[in-house]
């Protein structure tokens, strides 16, 4: 409860600051906002591409698709590696290592189990 009240209070107090920060961000990132929009473009295109491809996948393959795409979502592993392996201090390293273990499980386990499922489909002609 206390945290909540505090939070609400801070939000109200900070309101004028945000406008300023927004403007600062906009100025500072002239050319950088451009970069952000490029990232957004990449995101939007990838979503469209995903939709187009996935809608073509037949029902038979939906379970492998689910576990396969789940494995891909472990891509956060790359971020984990950078966090754990970089010059970042102990706390960041600890978080990073935990993230590496989690994400690796997701990635490796996901691909292996998907392969196991799909191999069943292959045995039949």
């Amino acid at each position: 409860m206390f945290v909540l009240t505090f939070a609400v209070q801070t939000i109200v107090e900070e309101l004028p600051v945000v406008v300023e920060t927004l403007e600062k961000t906009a100025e500072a990132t002239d050319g950088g906002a451009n970069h952000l929009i490029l990232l957004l473009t990449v995101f939007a295109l990838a979503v469209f591409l995903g939709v187009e491809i996935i809608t073509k996948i037949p029902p038979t393959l939906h379970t492998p698709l689910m576990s396969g795409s789940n494995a891909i979502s472990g891509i956060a592993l790359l971020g984990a590696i950078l966090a754990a392996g970089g010059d970042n201090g102990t706390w960041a390293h600890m978080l990073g290592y935990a993230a590496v273990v989690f994400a690796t499980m997701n990635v490796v386990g996901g691909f292996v189990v998907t392969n196991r499922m799909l191999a069943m489909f292959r045995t039949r002609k």
Partner: protein
Amino acid sequence: MRPDLVDLAYLLAAILFVIGLKGLTRPRTAVRGNMLGALAMLFAVVATMLHQDIISWTGLLIAMGVGSVLGVVLALKIEMTAMPQLVALFNGLGGGASVLVAGAWLSGKEFSEKLASGNGFMDALTATAASGLIGAITLSGSLVAFGKLQELKFVKDISFPGQRILNLLLALGSIGVGYLMVVQPENAQLWFWLLAITATTLGVFLVISIGGADMPVVIALLNSYSGLAASATGFVLNNNLLIIAGALVGASGLILTRIMCVAMNRSLWAVLFGKMQSGGTMLSDDEVYANVKSTSPEEVAMMLEVAQNVLIVPGYGMAVAQAQHTVRDLTNLLLKKDIAVNFGIHPVAGRMPGHMNVLLAEADIDYDRLKEMDEVNAMMDQVDVAIVLGANDVVNPSARTDPNSPIAGMPIIDVDKARTVIVVKRSLSPGFAGIANPLFAADNTMMLFGDGKQAISEVTKALNEG
């Protein structure tokens, strides 16, 4: 390796992911598609390890070794029937990793440099908050889903008055805290972990009240979230591969969610927030089941002997009983006797989309015999014997006949229109939707009580001897 070379490697990996996903569109290329995906991941990991910012490898290799061993063991030990749980578990881990990465970034070098420089970096902070929020919901939601599917004792369907309001408050709270994090970068760590806790709680409460039958939808949705979380992490780290891979997964989850909702004739909103009203014209089980006839494996064998066209409709019970291999034996026997056998696959039979296909494929049953719902329904009047094997909701005629039923309007496989129906299950207890099934008491239906595997193998034996 120079950052731009790493980026180039990421671009290649992204292209490999796309090609791999395209491979998944056909059974023949699916194995290769999955391997391409794994290869892309390996490639991306190696490129990242070679990044000039990585100062030590030992810890990383150990951590990855541990993760790999755990992952492989889980993946190889798991029963095919427990696949939904496993996906839920992995999914939660992925979401958790996103949260941890975002947290690590906030206590890392780049963040402190940006903070010191005094320049605004709202976009990165917003992405961090999003990554924490979505990742935490994915983490706790997936773990709760895992618990429900694994039928862990301490995870119950909990719902209480005011739950929606609590959820709304938690959601608003998370957004508020995220906002604070963005505007007060000096306290970012504090706010971030508060955000993570709030969102974790939110994830628990969101999923805990959803019934088991809807878990697959929840998992697909959470899968989509874990992709979005990875994308958000990509925005934080300015990493296009994370963005692309995350977006692909996000799209995949959303589409699977949609497919399931359409197959159940319910809106996503109803799945997530609507309670399954426990059924309109609610007759007591005694009334519905007054005229149930039961039968024996020998009698079933006799009926099969004289049939020309047999349809098998498998459901979740087949998965539980692990009856797929026994079913294969029965199928082969029938085929040898020149009796046509087909399988009617309902899109949401089992606990995952395509669940039945995977199991039947495991038992080496010919791809061509698996027919989709529409196709079987069109030829139902030519079916002499329909064997319903551990399916319940997907053959419940009240979906068609009772407009007040909770599953009203859900398309079903119309086995009740076959000449004779044999229902194999252990009792008269309901399926996952929790409602009675008038099919069991229909004039042309006979119940064969018992475990699916056992019952089918007895029928096969009787048929062999008869």
